[in-house]
C-alpha cells in the first residue's frame, strides 16, 4: 500500500515538473495543440483538392504530390540549416566563443546559408534519385525552371531561418519549439499540395503574401506542361527580396536587443 502511495507521489511529482515548465512558457503551451492543428489543416485541404479533381487521373495527382514534397523539403532544410547552425552553438555552450571571435555577423550568416545550400543540394539529389527509382518521377524532366523555383524556396527558407534565429538570440531555449514549428505554420498557407483556390477566402489572403505560394503554383504549372508567366516570377523576386530584408533586419535587431539586455552572454546557460 505504502509503495503504491509512493509511486503515485513520484508520478505526480514528475507531472508537476511538466506543469511548472508549461506555466512559464507560452511557447510550450502553444506547442501542445500546434502539430495536430497543422496536420488537420494540411490533410483537410488536401481532401478538398482531391474531391475537386475527381476527374484527374490519380497518377497525375501523385506526381504533383511527389514534386511538391521534394520542393517543400528544399524550403524546410534551408530554414533549418540557418537556425540549427546557431542552435548547435547554443547546445554545445560554444556560442560565446563564436560571439567574441573576430567574426562579422554577416560572415556567420553567410556560412549558415552555404551550409544550408549544401544540405539542400544533397537532400534534393537523394530524393530525386529515390523518386526516380521507386516512383518513376523524373526531377530532371521538370527542366531548368526547377532551379529558380528551388532557389526561391531556399531564399524564403533563409528568411524564415533568420527570423527564428533572431528569436533564439532573444529568448534562448524557450524559443526552440518555434524553430521546428514556424515552417509548418506556413505550410497550409503555402499551397504546397493543392492550389490557392482550395483555401477559404481568409486563408487565401495569407497565402498571397507568401513567396512559397507562388513557387508551388509555378511548380504545378510546370508539371502540367504550362509556361510560368513573367508576372509570377516578378512577384516571387519581389516577395523573396522583401522577406530576406525583413528577416535580416529582425535578426540584427534581436542581436542588438540581446546585447542590450545581457542575454547574449548567457545564451546556452539557462
Amino acid at each position, binding site marked *: 500500500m505504502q509503495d503504491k502511495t509512493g509511486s503515485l507521489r513520484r508520478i505526480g511529482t514528475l507531472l508537476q515538473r511538466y506543469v511548472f515548465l508549461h506555466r512559464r512558457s507560452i511557447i510550450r503551451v502553444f506547442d501542445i495543440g500546434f502539430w495536430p492543428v497543422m496536420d488537420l489543416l494540411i490533410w483537410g485541404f488536401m481532401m478538398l483538392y482531391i474531391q475537386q479533381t475527381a476527374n484527374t487521373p490519380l497518377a497525375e495527382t501523385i506526381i504533383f504530390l511527389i514534386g511538391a514534397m521534394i520542393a517543400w523539403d528544399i524550403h524546410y532544410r534551408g530554414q533549418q540549416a540557418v537556425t540549427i547552425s546557431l542552435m548547435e552553438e547554443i547546445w554545445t555552450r560554444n556560442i560565446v566563443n563564436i560571439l567574441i571571435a*573576430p567574426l562579422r555577423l554577416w560572415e556567420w550568416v553567410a556560412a549558415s546559408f552555404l551550409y544550408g545550400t549544401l544540405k539542400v543540394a544533397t537532400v534534393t539529389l537523394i530524393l530525386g534519385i529515390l523518386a526516380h527509382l521507386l516512383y518513376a518521377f523524373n526531377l530532371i524532366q521538370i527542366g531548368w525552371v526547377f532551379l529558380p523555383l528551388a532557389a526561391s524556396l531556399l531564399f524564403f527558407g533563409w528568411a524564415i531561418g533568420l527570423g527564428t534565429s533572431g528569436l533564439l538570440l532573444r529568448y534562448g531555449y524557450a524559443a526552440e519549439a518555434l524553430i521546428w514549428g514556424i515552417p509548418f505554420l506556413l505550410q497550409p498557407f503555402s499551397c504546397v499540395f493543392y492550389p490557392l483556390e482550395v483555401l477559404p477566402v481568409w486563408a487565401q489572403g495569407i497565402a498571397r503574401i507568401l513567396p512559397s505560394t507562388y513557387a508551388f503554383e509555378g511548380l504545378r504549372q510546370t508539371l502540367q506542361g504550362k509556361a510560368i508567366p513573367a508576372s509570377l516570377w516578378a512577384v516571387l523576386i519581389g516577395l523573396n527580396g522583401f522577406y530576406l530584408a525583413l528577416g535580416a533586419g529582425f535578426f540584427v535587431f534581436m542581436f542588438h536587443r540581446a546585447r542590450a539586455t545581457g542575454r547574449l552572454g548567457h545564451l546556452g546557460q539557462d
Partner: protein
Amino acid sequence: MNANELAIEVRGLTHRYERSAGFAVEALDFEVRRGEIVGLLGPNGAGKTTTLHTVLGLLAPTAGVVRVFGRSPLLERMQVLGRINFASVDVHLPSNLLVEECLYIFSNLYGVSYRSERIRNLVERFDLKALRRQRVGSLSSGEHMRLKICKALLNSPELLILDEPTLSLDPYMAHRVRSLLKEIQSERQISILHTSHNMREVESFCDRILFLHHGRKIAEGPPSEVLARSKSRNLDELFIRVAVSGDIFDAG
C-alpha cells in the same frame, strides 16, 4: 602594443538588467595596464560577469564607457576582438569536435599564422598532446579547461580574460596552469583580467586586485596593500568580511 596604451579603460560603467531592482554594476572606474594581471573579486552577484561581458562586447552597458586598447568593443569589434581572447569555466568548446579540429577551427577564425606550429606548441605546453584525436565531449573537466586556455592563447592575445580558469583543475594542474600563464604573460607582456574565488591563487597570481560588492568597487590595489588597508590577514578573511557585513574599505 604601444607601451603607454591601456589594455582596458572603464569609466563610469553602469548597468541595470531588465526587470531588476538594482544595478548590476554602478559607476565603476578601473584600468588594466600593459603586462598587468588584475584580479576581479567579489561575492556572487557582485558584478564581475557583467563587467567581463562589457569588456568582451557581449553587453551594451546602460551608461559609461568601456575601451579596450582605446577602442569600443561594441562599435569596433573587429579591431578589438582579434587582439583579445577569453576562457571561462561556463563557456565550453564544441563537444562534437576532436581536440585538434577544435583548435584548427578557432585558429582559422582568428587568422593565426603558422597554425600547425602554434597548435603543436600549445598542446605540448598544456599536456594535451595525447588527446589530440579525442572528442572534446569525452575530456575530463580539467582537460577541457586546459583546452579552453589553449584556445584562448591561439591568437597570442595582448589581453587575456579568464573567468575562474582553475576552478575545475586539481591542485597540481591548477599550479601548473598558473605557472604556464605567468610564463606566457612575462614572455609577451600580455595583460590579464582574471576572476577567481580562490583567494590564495589571487594573492599569488595577481599584481593588483579590484574588489566589487553589489556592483560597486570597494577596494583596489596590490593584494598586500589592500590587506594592510583593510587590516585583514588574508584575502579569504577579507572576502568573508565583505560578504557578511558589506564593509566598504576604500575605493582605491
